[in-house]
């Protein structure tokens, strides 16, 4: 049984269903990646897993518990963390305050976690007093990931963490994500840069029009000629 | 079809209520209520054009109605010859400065391209015009106000038929609406609300304090009427014989007859405005307006100039309110600036629209009738209720006296609660908007 699994999820934003029988899973300490064309429902699948969307069929299981009925806040308390695709920082708050807000539910001392985040993203330590809204796109993504890590999650969900980030910073960010996974945290990630993402992925999902088109290990998908032709640009 | 049966039912109940007042209280009271219901309906129609068609939140209804009232004075009152004799040239200078400023500002606005430069220039011209007016026109106002202050002390009007004031009041309101809309439309909807709140306070302040124009708090009395006077009727042969045939007392019947005349006039205007509004709503223009209201973003994307359309609708609605304002002052026969209270003139109209059915013209009309009726009847009802509730107490009990004295304020609260309940439980109103395909 996977650590996290969204099984046969079907649902949408109130109108027509966006997801159809979609299944997404992530294992402990592993990286799972969702790829697919724009509008495929990748973000929607993430929201469904996080409880920000009503699914009328299927269920979400975390560590063996059915969490389908829980609110996003309760899922945070259960050890899940989510970095949305857009608007994922508090722009008028300082970097440090952003991290503090990430740890809002924690009542214990958060300074060691914050040091860990600063170790992971040294630039944030430098800019800790600056407002997140005044940072560059790449730095902002780091704040967003850092904020999510502050809850000390067991599962980290990232929706396109490398959007709008230069290739060098992107490699940086992927390295960091691997580092995070090595500490035992499960990672579920949506990526536009499918090739690099599948490279580091233990498991890959290709989503098309709200359905699972291909599901395999990252390497297998990279080697699959059909996937290469339609989704990886040859 | 179900809908129209329901609507006929609503309006019949309303008519029944008015007849009931006629039977129980008096026909004079019933007709007074009817006349104000008619005017309220027209105001509600104006607000509904703005809110129902376009989602614009106008909190300055009072100001536009007051402009209509001012128009009634300017059009219908006879000119005060002595004032013109001593201050005519000063007034000419004042009007000259005013026109020159307006034309210069408009020219700059037309000729220059949009940008800070244009805004600053227009503002400088307006400020210069203001300063010149203060320097050259202020002394004139003093002179005017000194002429027989107890009975005139103002310029008077043009001495034209009062009916002319109705369209003029509309135009005046429309012109002010254009300026306010030009600045605030296209920004957040709250800004329009606050700006209209401000302009209406200013308009009423002008009426209260510019004695040379409107006599201020001294009020303008004795506006000429578009209908016969009671005394005239009581002496007219045809009227007396009519009374005889009906078996009515000429004194009572003359005042009922006058009110009926007003009712016919008001009802004609209401029907005309209603007909035009319905026609507009069904036209391609109306369809586009609703498309914009329901999805501003995509309308914008389709290349529709949303702000310009909003300006149109805002001006149109304000014109209707201005007309109704002029009618109201005509009915009162006097302009009483201190009677313009925002709760009565702005927010009450809003209750009418929300309760009646935003987006539906018939709904707005019904709301005008229903809410006005209850606004008037709530006072005696509240008093009766308080008397009843406190009947166990001694006649001079302080609490009892306070409660009875304050009963009048109950209706504000009642209106607020009606608004909240309607918004919550019947947000589409008594007569909901139809879904035109």
């Amino acid at each position, binding site marked *: 049984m996977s650590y996290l699994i969204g099984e046969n999820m079907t649902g949408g934003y109130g109108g027509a269903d966006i997801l159809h029988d979609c299944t997404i899973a992530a294992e402990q300490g592993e990286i799972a990646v969702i790829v697919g064309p724009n509008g495929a429902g990748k973000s929607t699948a993430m929201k469904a897993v996080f409880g920000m969307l009503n699914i009328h069929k299927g269920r979400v299981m975390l560590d063996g518990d059915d969490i389908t009925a829980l609110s996003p806040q309760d899922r945070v308390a259960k050890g899940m963390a989510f970095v*949305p695709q857009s608007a994922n920082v508090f722009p008028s708050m300082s970097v440090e305050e952003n991290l503090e807000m990430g740890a809002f539910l924690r009542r214990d001392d958060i300074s060691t976690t914050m040091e860990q985040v600063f170790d992971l993203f040294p630039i944030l330590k430098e800019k800790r007093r600056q407002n997140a809204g005044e940072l560059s796109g790449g730095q902002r993504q780091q704040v967003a990931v850092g904020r999510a890590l502050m809850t000390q999650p067991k599962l980290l969900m990232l929706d396109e963490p490398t959007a709008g980030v230069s290739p060098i910073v992107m490699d940086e960010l992927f390295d960091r994500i691997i580092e995070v996974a090595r500490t035992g945290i499960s990672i579920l990630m949506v990526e536009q840069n499918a090739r690099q993402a599948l490279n580091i992925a233990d498991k890959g999902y290709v989503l098309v029009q709200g359905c699972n088109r291909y599901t395999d290990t990252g390497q297998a998908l990279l080697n699959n000629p059909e996937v290469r032709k339609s989704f990886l640009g040859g | 079809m179900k809908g129209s049966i329901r609507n006929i039912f609503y309006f019949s109940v309303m008519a029944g209520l008015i007849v009931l007042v006629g039977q129980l209280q008096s026909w004079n009271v019933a007709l007074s209520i009817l006349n104000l219901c008619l005017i309220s309906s027209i105001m509600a129609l104006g607000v509904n054009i703005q809110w129902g068609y376009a989602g614009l939140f106008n909190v300055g209804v009072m100001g536009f109605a007051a402009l209509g009232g001012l128009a009634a004075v300017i059009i219908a009152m006879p000119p005060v010859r002595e004032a013109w004799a001593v201050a005519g040239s000063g007034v000419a200078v004042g009007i000259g400065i005013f026109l020159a400023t307006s034309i210069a500002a408009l020219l700059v606005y037309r000729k220059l391209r949009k940008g800070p430069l244009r805004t600053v220039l227009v503002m400088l011209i307006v400020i210069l015009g203001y300063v010149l007016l203060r320097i050259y026109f202020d002394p004139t106002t003093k002179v005017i106000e000194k002429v027989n202050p107890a009975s005139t002390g103002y310029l008077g009007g043009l001495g034209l038929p009062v009916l002319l004031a109705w369209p003029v009041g509309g135009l005046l309101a429309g012109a002010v609406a254009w300026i306010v809309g030009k*600045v605030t439309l296209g920004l957040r909807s709250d800004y329009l*609300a606050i700006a209209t709140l401000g302009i209406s*306070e200013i308009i009423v302040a002008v009426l209260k304090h510019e004695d040379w124009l409107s006599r201020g708090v001294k009020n303008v009395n004795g506006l000429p009427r578009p209908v016969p006077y009671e005394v005239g009727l009581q002496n007219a042969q045809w009227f007396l014989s009519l009374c005889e045939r009906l078996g009515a007392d000429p004194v009572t019947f003359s005042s009922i007859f006058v009110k009926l005349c007003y009712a016919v006039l008001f009802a004609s205007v209401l029907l005309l405005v209603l007909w035009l509004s319905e026609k507009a709503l069904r036209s391609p223009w109306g369809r586009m307006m609703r498309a914009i209201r329901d999805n501003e973003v995509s309308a914008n994307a389709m290349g529709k100039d949303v702000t310009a359309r909003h300006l149109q609708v805002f001006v149109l609605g304000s014109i209707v309110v201005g007309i109704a304002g002029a009618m109201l002052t005509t009915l009162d026969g006097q302009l009483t600036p201190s009677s313009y209270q925002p709760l009565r003139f702005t927010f009450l109209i809003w209750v009418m629209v929300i309760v009646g059915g935003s987006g539906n013209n018939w709904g707005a009309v019904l709301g005008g009738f229903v809410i006005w009726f209850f606004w008037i009847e709530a006072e005696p009802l509240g008093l009766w209720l308080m008397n009843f509730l406190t009947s166990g107490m001694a006649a001079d009990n302080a609490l009892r006296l306070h409660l009875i004295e304050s009963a009048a304020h109950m209706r504000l609260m009642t209106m607020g609660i009606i608004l909240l309940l309607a918004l919550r439980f019947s947000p589409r109103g008594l007569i909901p908007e139809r879904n035109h395909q």
Partner: protein
Amino acid sequence: MTEETLNALALLSNFVLVPAVAYGSQLALGALGVTLVYGILRFSNFAHGDTMAFGTMFTILFTWWFQSMGLSLGPLPTALLALPFAIVLCALFALLTDKFVYRFYRQQRADPVIFVIASVGVMFVMNGLVRFIIGPNDQNFADGERFIIKAREFKQMTGLAEGISIKVSQGITVITMIVVVAALFWFLNKTRTGKSMRAYSDNEDLALLSGINPDRVVMVTWILAAALATIAGTLYGLDKSFKPFTYFQLLLPVFAAAIVGGLGNPLGAIAGGFVVAFSEISVTYAYKKFANYMVPGDDWKADGLMQLLSTNYKFAVSFLILLLVLLFRPTGIFAGKSA
């Protein structure tokens, strides 16, 4: 500096500077309430003026009660003693309105303009309640000492022809404003709850994802807004007098202040309060005497009052400032949330 100039400055301080500082503090407190509600609940609360009246009414009632029991603060107005009790009642009422009115629309994720209309309904109710309970008339509830410095004393001290007087109410206003603003900023910037409110105002969805409890944020916002409204209203009432309709009219300058500063921005609200107050008072002040002092020699005397705008039109000043800001910087001086 000549004595004439000193006299002119004293005159200006007495009639413009001192009143504008006091009035500006009152507007700033009012605008802070508006801006908080706007930042967190995302609508312009038209009931804020009447909330000010509502809270002040409780202050007055408690003041009367304390006075009847012989309680007083000596030279300070009894109203200060009554204020905390009034805040509690006003906050309770605000929470009730949220429970019965606004929460429904929040759950519906209704359009902001619906909230605004609902706030108009609340305004009606509050307005009716105030008039019902305390009546529509003027109430003067200031007691204790009246002046910190009387004009006469100032003249004796300095030997100038013009005096500066400072009322106790003005002193209290400024001190209270400073204390309240300091406490508010400490709360918003240093406490967990305060930071969570800022986070919620910044990015509601992300705040939810971080486990911030929206109901708590909203509750604290209403309590703060009611407290600010009650304090602002009480200070205004002590300084001038209490009349329900005047408080409704304060809505315009208060909103102008909040918009000038950038809706949703607390620092901006304070700056906006002073901008509006100084403009209003300096534009409506009659500069005749001041000019006579400033122009040396006796051969020139100002004719007329030299008043830019009659005090009857003081609301026009707020309105004009509002228009100017909307024309040139719709987001306010300190960019707010109102893009």
